[in-house]
Structure formats: structure tokens, C-alpha cells
């Protein structure tokens, strides 16, 4: 398989996993922020947006220090499970998930806050437990808004470079995603390959944008969406 297509399939794999992992975490945290009131809630909210604002290399460095072989979490992972995240595609997924989950968290919280609480109350009175209320009422009614966040997260994960390079390195077939492959090709003077990769990335980006505009129309979080 040509290196360009290998890089593309790896990028997609990493981005999909990162969106799934970041998506679940982001939705959960978005729900907690929308439904609970505790002192310092706004501080937590701002902290969670930090990965969106911090330079990727800064994030990558923090991750490296924490998750590397000698880091607090990394050492524990290695001694307990024998897992070593640096230079693995799973490490790439974690880096990409961390930079992209704030998008999901933000839009999930907004979407959940738009859901009329009386629907959830009606469901409770009809005998449902909290989990059932969430999956049958809250989530379906908030879905549109969350989807917009997921798409943003996916595109962010797909383009992730700085933190990924630091954590996962640039190993063809394992962690060399499209963005990193372009960087390498340019460094090595392989212009033809660089052009090929850039073309693939551009086309992929356009396809995603078109799909996004079809799936999640611009009207997100309308008040009347949950109040027909």
C-alpha cells in the first residue's frame, strides 16, 4: 500500500477513535456541567477548555511528562498493565482526544441545557430511572447540537500534529498520520509525496465539511427544538 494511503487510513483510524473516546467523555462532562450546580463550576468549565487554547506542543509536553515511561501515570500503566503509550497509535488517539474533546463538551453542555427539563421530569414520573431518562429523552433531544461538536472534534483530531508528534512520534504505518507525513516529506525534500499528501488532506477536509453541512444544519440549539 502506498505510503500516502497508509497515512490516510491511519489518520482516519486515529481521528475516529479519538472522536469516540473524546465524544463519550465530552458528553458525560457536558451533562454533568449542565445538570449540576457546585461551587467552582465555572472554574472547572474554563479548565476543560484549556486543551483548546493551549498550544499543542505545550499539551504534548504535559502529556509526555505524565504518560511517558517515567511519568506518574505512565510508570503506573507500565508496572500494572505493561502498557507503554509513547510511540503507539493508542497514544496518538489520546493526544488527539484531549485536544478535541472540549469541542464536544462545550456543544454537549449547550445542547443539554436547551432540553426542556419537563420532558425529563415527565419521563421520571412515568417510572424511568436516570440512565433511561438520559438515553431515551435527554440524548435524543440534544443530539443535533452534540453532533455539531462531534464533527468539529473529528476535524480537529484529524489535523492534530504537535501533541501527536510528541507523544506518538512519527512511525510510518503506526503513528505517522497525514499531517506528520507531510512534515516529514517536506523535511526530506520529497516534494512529489508532499503534494500527494496535501491533496489527499484537502479533499478529505472538503468532503467532511460538505457532510457536516448536510447532517447538522446551521441552526443548532434552537429553543423550540425541544419544545414542539
Amino acid at each position, binding site marked *: 500500500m502506498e505510503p500516502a494511503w497508509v497515512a490516510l487510513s491511519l489518520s482516519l483510524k486515529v481521528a475516529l477513535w479519538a472522536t469516540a473516546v473524546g465524544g463519550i467523555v465530552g458528553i458525560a462532562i457536558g451533562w454533568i456541567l449542565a445538570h449540576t450546580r457546585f461551587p467552582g463550576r465555572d472554574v472547572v468549565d474554563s479548565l476543560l477548555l484549556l486543551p483548546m487554547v493551549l498550544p499543542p506542543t505545550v499539551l504534548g509536553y504535559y502529556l509526555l511528562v505524565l504518560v511517558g515511561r517515567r511519568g506518574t501515570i505512565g510508570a503506573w500503566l507500565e508496572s500494572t498493565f505493561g502498557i507503554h503509550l509513547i510511540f503507539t497509535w493508542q497514544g496518538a488517539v489520546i493526544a488527539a482526544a484531549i485536544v478535541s474533546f472540549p469541542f464536544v463538551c462545550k456543544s454537549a453542555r449547550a445542547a443539554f441545557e436547551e432540553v426542556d427539563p419537563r420532558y425529563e*421530569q415527565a419521563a*421520571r*414520573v*412515568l*417510572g*424511568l*430511572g436516570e440512565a*433511561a431518562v438520559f438515553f431515551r429523552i435527554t440524548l435524543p433531544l440534544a443530539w443535533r447540537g452534540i453532533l455539531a461538536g462531534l464533527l468539529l472534534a473529528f476535524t480537529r483530531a484529524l489535523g492534530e500534529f504537535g501533541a501527536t508528534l510528541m507523544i506518538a512520534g512519527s512511525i510510518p504505518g503506526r503513528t505517522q498520520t497525514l499531517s506528520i507525513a507531510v512534515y516529514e516529506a517536506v523535511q526530506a525534500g520529497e516534494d512529489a509525496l508532499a503534494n500527494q499528501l496535501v491533496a489527499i488532506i484537502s479533499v478529505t477536509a472538503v468532503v467532511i465539511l460538505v457532510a457536516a453541512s448536510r447532517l447538522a444544519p446551521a441552526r443548532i440549539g434552537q429553543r423550540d427544538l425541544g419544545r414542539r
Partner: protein
Amino acid sequence: MKWDVRIARRMGRGERAFDLDVAFDADASRLVLFGPSGAGKSLTLQAIAGLLRPDAGHVAVDGQVVFDQASRRNVRPRDRHFGYLFQDYALFPHLTVRQNVAFGSTHGLTNPSRRDDVARVSEWLATFELDTLADRFPEQLSGGQRQRTALARALVAQPRALLLDEPFAALDVPLRGRLREELLALQARTGLPMILISHDPVDVELFGERVVTIEHGRVRP
């Protein structure tokens, strides 16, 4: 049904605070909570249903305590087994009439399918003449149809009492009369106790076996 209600709750803060302090004892199959808008009737009903947690007091139904602040007892809404009708019905917009009505028949993590055929559901759909509308969505229904759907939904869950918050307020006058009769007939047939909130004296006349008047958050003696 014996209703023993004694609740206190402060809503809001500072100058805009509203103090709810309602206490009454009633033994009736049709209880009406009557009073002007903003008196605190809905809050009282929500407290009985478990949708609102009072700061103090207790609620007991037929001798069974569902809320008691002193002993920290608070039965969750799903375990109180009341049917509740919201003021604008709160029909689930993403589900069809059939799915709405069948909603309480399953407590799992997935909604009933559109082709659900639990016997109880079909019966109530037929009783309220909703079977032809079963596959429509709430936004496609008229006010009276929505009210009946909401009622059917509450009844499918086999409640031990019905709590209705201004069930007729959103309907126009001719429709009100018809639905009042339907509700009375329903009660006569099922024997289901009910608490009804209304600011309309006509409802007091028709339904008020026992009437509790609430004004400014308190029961008028």
C-alpha cells in the same frame, strides 16, 4: 385517597423570593387545588409527585410516607406511582403518539418501537380515539388530541392516582366542556383518585369533592 400534605420551600432568593408553605389534610377521590396564577398550586403538585423537594415537612398518601424531611425520607418520582399531566402536556416531540402512550410500559434503555403492541397501550389508544393518530407526532396534533395523548400516557403506567396541572387551560371553551365530561367519566369508570389544579371556578364545581384554596403560597383557611 388520603392526602396528608405539609410542605415548605423557598423559591428564588432575596427580594424575589417566594415562600411556599402549604398544609392540608384531605380524604377525597377528587381533590381540587384552586387559586389564582402564581399562587403555588403547581409547586405543591410537583412536591407531591416528587419533582420538587421541599425544604421541610412531609407528604403521606394513604398513610404511606413519600417524603419526610425530618427522617430524610424522599421517595423518587418513579417509585411514587402517580400519573402526572403537565400544563402543556410535555409530550415527547421525537416520539409518535403510540410511542408516547407506550412510554411508561417499559423502563429499559430503549424507547418502545413504533410498532409496539402492548395490549394496554392499544386499549387506551382506542378509548381516547387516538388509534388513527397513533403514528403522528405531537406537533401534528390538536390541543384536545394532545391532552388525551398525555392522559393515555399517564394511565398506561398504571398509576395509583392522577395529578393534573390545569388540564383544560390550554383548550378552547367548547372543547373544555367535552373533555371535562370525559375525565369525569374516566374517573367514574376507573375509580382513580385525582388531584386537579385549576383557577377556573367551573372545575371546582364539577370536580371539587374537596377543595383546597391556595393563595400567595399558603392555604386559605
